[in-house]
């Protein structure tokens, strides 16, 4: 979330789309209700199903799964056509005025400029800004990029230091005009044909949403709230981008009650991302080194952006500090073994030049190259996609280590339904199942959707012989290290030199790890400006103190400030909220630097005055010559508004990106509507380019994809129930009592066509596998007219497996929903397309 849970109460209008917070985030959704009650805020819900969130809405649109970009693109078109835009915000805080390089082409035929059909990738060199260096000006020197490895794609040129721009927004190649042209195709008629939302209903919705900018008024604010209904598509990232662009166009980002707000579905996947639990980043969103980097200097050159902006403007370009964050991370990991001479142990980090993401793990295991898997609290078989492929993959592995609190589908893949006793004898995988600790047995922090880090305390020890997860990991690692110490082996250096100076190495106290994440001084340090000094060994007060000369160590620069010399900031419990905006500045700690609303400089006009005096977050204090406020300003504190520094300090442009240049996205600088990989209709925008052109299907025999001609023509989407949590609460008696059985939700009309009544046992099949459960015949999903053709959607909750209270008692069909889902992923985030695949439905 750019904003936070409580901040939703400040909104005038909420668009909830791709999420169902009333059921999946009930205690957070209450803040939408508060806004409705106290501010008379309006709520728009767009979803394939009439959910309980929809039940509280002022306006509901039933949408065909996977057509969100068509809908949001239509909203952009409406906002521009009706001048419902935040003109000053757009001009000063986004790249709307930037001129795009000649040769860039919009995707009228479904393809942007630079597409290579053979490799299914784009040469993105035209996706950039026009160089705006005037004849007398000096072009900032950008050294030529390093020579590419043979066969590797040509490295992209950097963004121009001085960007050509047109503040009248009239230049035919300025971002605003390209945006206008791009979405001029997304007419209300096209929205109706593609999404199934009638033209009238769409116009009503677009009118309501953009009404906050009626007559150019800037006081009102709208928020957009989403969840995995947007991410789980082969164009998920671009859907979210469309929302972000719409919010920039309407001037809603950085403001109380505004923003683009992802509702994370799990307690600490925000933290897992911050800490680089995924292959393609290092802690604090640092980029992973590639083989072609060769050395630290080249890596830092590639990953440290230089500012790119109109010449008279200023850009903080905060990522220019990348070397400080990187060297501090390496010092945190390798301590004294990281020296200037060995490039701070840069060679210790594995180099990454291909996709190692979630579905690739299973694909590589299926192909036999991944031989061992360690799974801690991660039920990969049930999570899918294509659970059967994952089971087949595990059969080929040498060993599997599962750390869990309940018996789960992954650890018991070798006796999953359908495997005979004879087949079991042929499965050679060794499986270790280690009993771990539950949430109440562990201390430490989790990071919520609002970026709050909250310290929790252990209430009880783990039961039986179960151990704390961190202890198990430490003990495995120390045993591996011991083996390398005594026997040697391949490149033992990073293993032998990893810092592990915990007071009890076999049981690392999480408080010590938390302090390590915050970072400390490795030498006496003095701030040259304020002459403030911190001593060697002291915790750093914040990331501004980090150095690239080896005098600081920090596990995650974004978490610097969370555990300072003043103590554990994440354990704070001050409930005061003097501004009344729900900031709660002294409750727990929020990254970055305890800011609660990101990009909050944009809550003020260019002169530094809040757009809305009743919701004052930060402002420029002329007397103090400083930014001050009710929240921590997300800005350079002494940057006078006259200098025109952009509020989006993490972008080299300093402004929000309506146009995503160069390598920002794999599939286009603007979002374009593509159909899901399995779709019942042609792409009405460009029938010759139905799907996202850079998305590749998997190629093992297990990977199958179907279309309507194969007999699969019902759209299926997956969802969660408020009474259950993933594959976990099927072990909890109370939750099982609340919803004891799985079901398949289908429209009355489809049920009638197939002769199905409520409670009938039905079978849903995709080309990959089938799923059996009782029919839940409903009016919550209506048949849709897609391009004049009657189309059905069904929905299935995800929670069933083959181990659980009901499953063990033999009371249900013991099938996993994700046997149905296809292995295909978004090209930017690598998230699988769980939503909007094709099935057929029949009575059992």
């Amino acid at each position: 979330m750019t904003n936070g849970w409580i901040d939703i109460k400040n909104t005038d209008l909420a668009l909830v789309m791709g999420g169902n917070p009333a059921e999946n985030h009930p205690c957070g959704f209450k803040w939408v209700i508060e806004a409705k009650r106290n501010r008379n805020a309006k709520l728009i819900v767009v979803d394939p199903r009439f959910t309980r969130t929809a039940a509280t809405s002022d306006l509901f649109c039933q949408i065909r799964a996977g057509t969100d970009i068509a809908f949001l693109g239509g909203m952009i078109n409406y906002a521009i056509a009706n001048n419902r835009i935040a003109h000053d915000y757009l001009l000063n805080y986004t790249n709307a005025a930037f001129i795009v390089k000649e040769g860039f082409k919009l995707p009228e035929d479904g393809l942007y400029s630079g597409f290579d059909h053979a490799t299914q990738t784009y040469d993105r060199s035209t996706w950039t800004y026009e160089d705006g260096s005037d004849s007398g000006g000096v072009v900032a020197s950008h050294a030529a990029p390093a020579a590419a490895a043979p066969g590797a794609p040509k490295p992209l040129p950097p963004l121009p230091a001085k960007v050509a721009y047109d503040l009248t927004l009239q230049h035919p190649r300025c971002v605003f005009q390209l945006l206008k042209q791009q979405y001029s195709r997304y007419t209300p008629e096209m929205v109706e044909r593609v999404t199934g939302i009638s033209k009238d209903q769409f116009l009503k919705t677009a009118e309501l949403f953009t009404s906050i900018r009626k007559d150019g008024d800037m006081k009102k604010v709208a928020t957009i709230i989403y969840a995995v209904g947007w991410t789980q598509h082969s164009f998920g990232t671009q859907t979210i981008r469309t929302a972000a662009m719409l919010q920039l166009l309407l001037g809603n980002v950085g403001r109380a009650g505004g923003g683009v707000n992802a509702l994370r579905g799990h307690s600490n996947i925000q933290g897992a991302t911050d800490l680089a639990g995924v292959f393609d980043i290092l802690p604090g969103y640092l980029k992973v080194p590639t083989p072609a980097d060769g050395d630290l200097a080249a890596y830092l050159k590639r990953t440290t952006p230089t500012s790119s902006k109109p010449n008279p403007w200023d850009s903080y370009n905060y990522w220019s500090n990348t070397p400080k964050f990187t060297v501090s991370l390496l010092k945190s990991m390798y301590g004294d073994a990281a020296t200037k001479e060995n490039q701070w142990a840069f060679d210790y980090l594995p180099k990454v030049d291909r996709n190692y993401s979630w579905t690739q793990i299973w694909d590589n295991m299926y192909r036999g190259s991944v031989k061992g898997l360690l799974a801690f609290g991660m039920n990969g078989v049930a999570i899918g996609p294509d659970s059967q492929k994952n089971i087949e993959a595990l059969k080929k592995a040498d060993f599997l280590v599962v750390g869990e609190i309940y018996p789960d589908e992954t650890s018991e893949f070798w006796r999953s339904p359908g495997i005979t006793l004879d087949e079991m004898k042929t499965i050679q995988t060794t499986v270790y199942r280690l009993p771990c600790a539950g949430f109440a047995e562990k201390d430490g922090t989790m990071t919520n959707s609002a970026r709050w880090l909250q310290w929790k305390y252990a209430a009880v020890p783990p039961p039986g012989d179960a151990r704390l997860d961190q202890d198990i990991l430490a003990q495995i690692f120390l045993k591996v290290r011991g083996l390398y110490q005594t026997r040697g082996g391949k490149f033992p250096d990073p293993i032998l030199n990893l810092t592990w100076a915990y007071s009890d190495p076999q049981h690392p106290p999480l408080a010590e790890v938390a302090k390590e994440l915050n970072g400390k001084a490795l030498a006496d340090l003095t701030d040259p400006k304020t002459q403030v000094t911190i001593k060697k060994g002291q915790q750093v007060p914040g990331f501004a103190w980090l150095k690239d000369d080896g005098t600081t160590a920090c596990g995650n620069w974004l978490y610097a400030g969370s555990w300072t010399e003043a103590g554990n900031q994440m354990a704070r419990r001050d409930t005061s909220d003097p501004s009344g905006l729900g900031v709660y500045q002294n409750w727990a700690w929020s990254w970055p630097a305890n800011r609660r609303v990101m990009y909050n400089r944009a809550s003020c006009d260019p002169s530094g005055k809040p757009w809305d005096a009743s919701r004052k977050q930060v402002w420029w204090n002329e007397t103090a010559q400083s930014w001050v406020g009710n929240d921590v300003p997300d800005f350079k504190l002494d940057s006078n508004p006259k200098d025109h520094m952009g509020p989006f300090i993490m972008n080299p442009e300093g402004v929000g990106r309506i146009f995503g240049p160069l390598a920002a996205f794999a599939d286009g600088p603007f979002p374009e509507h593509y159909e899901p990989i399995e779709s019942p209709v042609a792409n009405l925008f460009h029938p010759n380019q139905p799907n996202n052109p850079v998305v590749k299907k998997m190629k093992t025999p297990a990977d199958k994809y179907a279309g309507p001609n194969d007999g699969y023509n019902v759209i299926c989407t997956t969802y969660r129930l408020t009474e259950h949590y993933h594959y976990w609460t099927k072990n909890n008696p109370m939750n099982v009592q609340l919803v004891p059985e799985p079901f398949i939700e289908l429209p009355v009309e489809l049920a009638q066509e197939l002769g199905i009544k409520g409670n009938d046992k039905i079978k849903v099949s995709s080309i990959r596998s089938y799923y059996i459960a009782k029919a839940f015949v409903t009016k919550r999903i209506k048949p849709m007219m897609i391009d004049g053709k009657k189309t059905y959607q069904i929905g299935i909750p995800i929670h069933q497996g083959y181990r659980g209270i009901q499953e063990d008692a033999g009371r249900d069909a013991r099938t996993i929903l994700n046997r149905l889902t296809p292995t295909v992923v978004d090209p930017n985030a690598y998230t699988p397309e769980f939503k909007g695949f094709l099935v057929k439905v029949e009575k059992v």
Partner: protein
Amino acid sequence: MELSRRTFLKGAVIGGTGFSLLGFDLAPAHAQLKELKIARATETRSTCPYCAVSCGVLIYTIGDKAKNVTPQVIHVEGDPDHPINRGTLCPKGASLYQDILNDRRLLKPQVRRPGSQQWEDIAWTQALDEIAQRIKKTRDDTFIEKDAQGHTVNRCESLAFIGGCTDTNEFNYLVVKTMRSMGLTFIENQARV
């Protein structure tokens, strides 16, 4: 007159039984207060492990103070001071008590040997020794120091680590430290899906 949950109950005690100024009978509330089973319990502040709203929860345990006694969880409820959930919990959070005290919990290490049709118990030391040896052997057998172009890559592509959604930040950092140091590139998390 503003009444918080606590002063309301206190008022009920002072007012005693019968009809109070509020106009209805507070006797049940009074009785409830007298017999609150959490009165002598230890209150531990925790965070709900399910979605990312991060509702504050209070876990009440007894027996903590006695030597060699394992504390026993007797009650779990929403934290009324928490600014986000303000004491509320959803049907999942409200049943956390049964997640902590659950007879389906795994209590000892087990192993399923190749070709076997069942689990067998294994001692922790034995399990961890075997796992460490397998990790080392797999890594040593497949470690890639340089790629085809001669670039140093120092990676191990034959092992994968997948982390869960409730792992703490601190655990996640230990994963980064240990797994990246062993050269793993297949490191993924629920965060991806």
